Every structure is written in C-alpha cells, then in structure tokens.
C-alpha cells in the first residue's frame, strides 16, 4: 500500500539525530507543561511556537507535536498524585487515579495511565496513517462551498453536542469570529473594527489570546484555591511497572472500546474531554467491577486515559486533511502551519508529503519515547510540584508574558494577554466555553473567505450551498446540529405532555 511506503519515507525524515533530539526535548518540555498549572497543552505550545521560527517547518512541527504528547502524558501525573487535573481531559482520571494513590498504589496508577495513553494514541495514529490519505483524496474535490459547509458543520456541532446553555456557546463562538474580523479585510482591504488604533491594525493574534485565556485565566482560577499543593508521593520502579503490565491486558476490551470512542470524538471538534468522560461512563456500565469505580479501580484509570489520548491524537486528522482543528491545541498547531506558510488541507498531502508523513512518523516515535521518558521521570516532575506556588506562579507569569511578546514583538500583546486572562477567568466561572471562541478565532478568516469565494462563484446566490449532493449533505448535517438543542428541548416537552 502506498501509505506504508510514504510512512517509511516519513520515518526516514524523522530518524535524523537533530529531529530525534527535538523529540526528546519536546516531550520533556511537554510533560513539564502538562504538570504545571497555567501552562496547559494549548498555552504551552502557543508560548513555544515562536521559538521554532528558526527551524525548518518539519522539525518545528515534530517538536511541537511532541510537546503536545508530553502535555497529554503530563496531565495524568497531577491528576493521580495531587487530585488536580492538569488538563480538562484528565479530570476523569482523578476519579479512580487519586484514590489509588491514596491507597499507596500511585505507581500502579501512573503506569496504567501512561500505558493506556500510549495504547490509545497508537490506535489513533494507525487510524490516521490509513484514513488521512483517504480523507485528503476525498477532500481534493472540495471547492469553497464544500469547505465552508465543513467549517459550518464543525461550528454547528459545538452547539449541537455542547453541554450547557447553547446561547453561551453561540456567544462565545461569535466573539471569536468578531475578534478574528478585526484588522484589515483581506478581500477589500478595508479596516474593520480598528477604531483608529494602529495597534489594532494587526488584528488579534490568536496565540496571544490562547496564552491569556488558557494560561493567565487558569492561574487566576488556581489562585482561588490558595497557594498549596499537597500531593502523594510515588515510586515507580521496574517491578511496579512490570507488575502493572501483567494486569493491564485483562482490560483489553475496555482499551479497544475507549480507543474507538476517543478516535471518533477526537475527529469531531468535541475533543478529548467529552471522550474521557464518556469512556469512563461506558466502562463503568459495562465492567464487572462497575460499582467499585471511584474507589480506586485500575480500569477506571485505563478507560479515560486511553480515550483522552486517542482523541487528542485523532484531533490532528481533520487538522492536516481539512484544515479544521479538532481541539484548541490542534488549533495552535494549525496557526503554526499558517505562520510557516503551509496551507493545511488536502493539498498539503500532495505538495508537502515530507512534512505530513514526517509528522505522522514522529507520532509513532514520539509516543514510544514519551512512554519511556515519562515512566522514568515521574519523581522529578512530582518534586517540581512541591516547589511552593509563590515561587512557581510568578515564574510562569513571566514565561507567559515572554510568550505573548515573542509572537509579534509587540509589548501591547502582553497587555492584551492580561485582558484575555481576566476574560478567561470570568468566562470559565460563568460556563462560557472557551474552545469555540478559540476555534472561531483561528478559523474565522478562513471561514469568511470560503464563504465569500463561494459567493463569488455563485454570483451572490446562497443556493450554492445545496447545489450538489455533497455540499447539501454536509450543510444539512450542519443545520441539524445547529438546531439539535432546540429539537431536544421540544422533544422533551412533547414527552412530558403525554401522560405515560
């Protein structure tokens, strides 16, 4: 199969000493980021992105995606040892992971978490290897109307599958679009929403918004809990690892099921967080020990971790094939691609095969290296968390400020970062979801230009969106998703009205 040949080509690109070094550095940085509060996956990748400007795009994306891996692994460490989820998708890991640590089984829990993550990511990478070229081929038939329809579907599914008030989801998303519109309009060259300010001419830089919303906002939230991190200690030695590995194969059904849940949810913009919760819930229902979930069942760690990693990895599939990121961190990687002048989408496979297959090959290697590195360095990272918050917090804030500045060499961006931080804090507390905002901010310009190009093709007629079966289906699905909450609400009222 040509995919395997291309994959081996990718391996050849990756197995270069510099790139291998980048993989190790990337994973270590990533775990560090995943472990520290305020430097989450999206934020950490955003801060480190400008540092990669001097590298070739292939090396850069390899390092950044390994940082992403590392952060995925790292989130489990704080969940299990400190009952603090390092990432939103590690929340479900705390349910059984922390009880296990409390019972002195921290080493087993960590090993189970890392190995499950490895397995989930591995399944997802295999899926990407074989499915991505198919999707890319298929997407080569896409024109502007189809692209806009896909983007519309992506955003509509936030509303359809989101929890909480759909109005808040819509507001959040539209704010992202509005911010994306600030600056020079690419089609007509007019200035929009700049209010005469030179600083606003540049528009809102996506990375700055991410650092503010996810980084500063996170730290402000953490501050509410005070300044103490007290955690359980863990020793991972070879004996514990091997013992756990002997137990894990018992849960192979859970692992496979969770991987599939993760792959499916990761590809849609829903993302890794719902995948981990859903997988935990399903495992609880189907497991023999379901009632004991929550007291320290190892299966309760396997299910969410496998799903979260499978989802996190699968989120890269729509990003490289269609240009639609499946998660905020994938959105940051996407903006990196744009900065390097690469056009994500089906043509990327055709025009830059080295880049794409190098990235995919690095996912395999990064996954393996990641597992090894993370199993061996847990005590080190756990020790870092014992550094008092009053030392770590200002250092993280300074790093965020540096990160915000280096995007465009503009001090104004640091002020913007702070403003976004306050917004992120308030929004998180009021349940305004941040993921749609961030995705709208990165895709806003693209979505708008797809729309306008489609309009140019159709001479201003909106009917182009159902002019052929492909566009019509995608657009129709989007409309269905958009009104899904309304349909559910109406259905609920109808059922209540009928006395059963």
């Amino acid at each position, binding site marked *: 199969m040509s995919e395997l040949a291309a994959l081996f080509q990718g391996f050849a690109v990756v197995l270069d000493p510099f790139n291998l070094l980048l993989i190790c550095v990337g994973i270590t940085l990533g775990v560090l980021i995943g472990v520290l509060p305020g430097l989450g996956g999206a934020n950490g990748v955003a801060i480190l992105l400008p*540092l990669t400007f*001097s590298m070739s795009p292939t090396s850069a994306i390899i390092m950044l995606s390994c940082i992403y891996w590392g952060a995925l692994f790292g989130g489990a460490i704080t969940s299990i040892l400190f009952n603090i989820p390092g990432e939103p998708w590690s929340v479900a890991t705390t349910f059984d992971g922390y009880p296990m640590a409390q019972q002195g089984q921290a080493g087993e829990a960590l090993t189970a978490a890392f190995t499950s993550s490895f397995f989930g990511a591995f399944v997802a990478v295999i899926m990407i290897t074989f499915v991505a070229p198919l999707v890319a081929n298929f997407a080569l038939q896409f024109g502007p109307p189809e692209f806009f329809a896909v983007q519309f579907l992506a955003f509509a599914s936030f509303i359809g599958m989101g929890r909480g008030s759909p109005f808040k989801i*819509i507001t959040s998303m539209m704010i992202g679009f509005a911010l994306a519109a600030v600056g020079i309009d690419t089609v007509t060259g007019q200035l929009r929403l700049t209010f005469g300010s030179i600083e606003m001419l540049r528009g809102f830089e996506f990375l700055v918004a991410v650092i503010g919303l996810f980084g500063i906002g996170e730290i402000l939230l953490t501050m509410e809990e005070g300044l103490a991190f007290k955690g359980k200690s863990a020793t991972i030695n070879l004996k514990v690892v091997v013992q756990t590995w002997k137990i894990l194969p018992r849960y192979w059904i859970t692992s496979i099921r969770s991987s599939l849940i993760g792959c499916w949810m990761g590809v849609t913009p829903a993302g890794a967080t719902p995948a981990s919760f859903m997988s935990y819930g399903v495992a609880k229902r189907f497991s023999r020990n379901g009632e004991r979930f929550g007291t320290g069942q190892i299966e309760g760690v396997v299910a969410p971790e496998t799903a979260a990693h499978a989802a996190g990895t699968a989120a890269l599939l729509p990003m490289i094939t269609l240009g639609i990121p499946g998660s905020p961190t994938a959105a940051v990687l996407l903006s990196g691609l744009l900065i390097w002048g690469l056009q994500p989408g089906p043509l990327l496979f055709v025009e830059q095969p080295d880049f794409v297959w190098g990235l995919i090959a690095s996912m395999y290697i990064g996954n393996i290296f990641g597992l090894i590195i993370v199993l061996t360095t847990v005590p080190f990272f756990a020790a870092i968390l014992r550094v008092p918050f*009053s030392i770590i917090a200002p250092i993280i*804030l300074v790093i965020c400020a540096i990160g915000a*500045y*280096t995007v465009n060499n503009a001090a104004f961006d*640091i002020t913007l970062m*702070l403003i976004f931080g306050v917004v992120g804090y308030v929004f998180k507390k*009021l349940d305004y979801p941040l993921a749609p905002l961030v995705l709208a901010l990165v895709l806003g310009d693209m979505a708008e230009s797809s729309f306008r190009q489609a309009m140019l093709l159709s001479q201003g007629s909106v009917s182009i969106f159902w002019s052929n079966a492909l566009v019509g289906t995608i657009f129709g699905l989007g409309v269905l998703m958009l009104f899904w909450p309304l349909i559910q609400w109406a259905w609920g009222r109808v059922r209540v009205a009928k006395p059963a």
Partner: protein
Amino acid sequence: MQDKSTANVNRGPSTGAIEIIVAALLIGFGVVVMWDSARIGAGWASDGPRAGYFPFYIGSIIAAASAVTLAQAIAGARRRDKKHTAVFVTLPKLRLVLSVLIPTAVFVLVIPFLGIYVPAAIFICLFMWRLGGYPFRKSIPVALGMPIVSFVTFEKWFLVPLPKGPLEAMLGY
C-alpha cells in the same frame, strides 16, 4: 469574638449579578461591532458581501444571544435560583486572585518602559516576599536567576529579542 474575617468567608458578589453584568457588557460589545460594520457597509455589493457583512451579523448574533442570556439571568435571579444566588467568588478568594492580578498588571504596564528583565526580577522577588514570606536573601537569587536564564536562552540561544529598558541600554545591549 466574631471577627470580620469569618463573617466574610462566604460573602461575595452573587453569580446572578455577575451573569447580568457580563451579558449586558456583551450586548454592548455586539452593538459596537454592528455599528462599526454598518459604518463600512454591511450590505451586498454586486459581487458578493461587502466588508462589513459578516461582522454585522456576527455582532447582531452576539447581541441577540446575550440578550437571551440576560433575560435568563434576570429570571433566574428573580426566582432565587440556586445557581444564581450562589456566590461568584468569595471575598477572601477574590483577595487572593487580586493579589496575583494587580502585581501582574503593574508588571505588564511597566514593560514598555523598563524592558522585561528588570521588572521580571522585581516581580518575582516581591511575589516571593509578600505571598510566600521568603526572606530577601532567598528570594533575590531566584529573582535574579530567572531573567538571566531567560536572557541567555532567548537572546543568545534562540535569537529572539525581548523588550529591553534603560539598564540594558547602559550595559550595551
């Protein structure tokens, strides 16, 4: 003796009040977006939408959706809904958050004038001293260490320039 701190522990602005304020602000934001879009032209030109078309409708959706949220928040507050009467942030927690936010704001505002290295050192030092209770002899090494490490990493290694102020200018950078 009941001191003020225990009485304050569970008081703070209610979630409902903050919801109303935020929703109202967002309606204002939406209206501003609509107004500026209308100014540059939000209609349909001969070959497609004009520059203000998209932002105009985006602004109107923000205003409309936030109006619904506002109505829901007011209704919830009237009904004394649990979610709305719950405290948004208790005063002690708010103090903790502000104790980070305000120094950070000062730090950020000072950067254009003093560069990033000097304010960072002062920021870390003061933070460790006020909030961590560390004596100066412990906080100064860390506070100096971080900017120096950053300088070497960013300026020398990655060749990424960071804002510099009068001190660095005196030192020849």
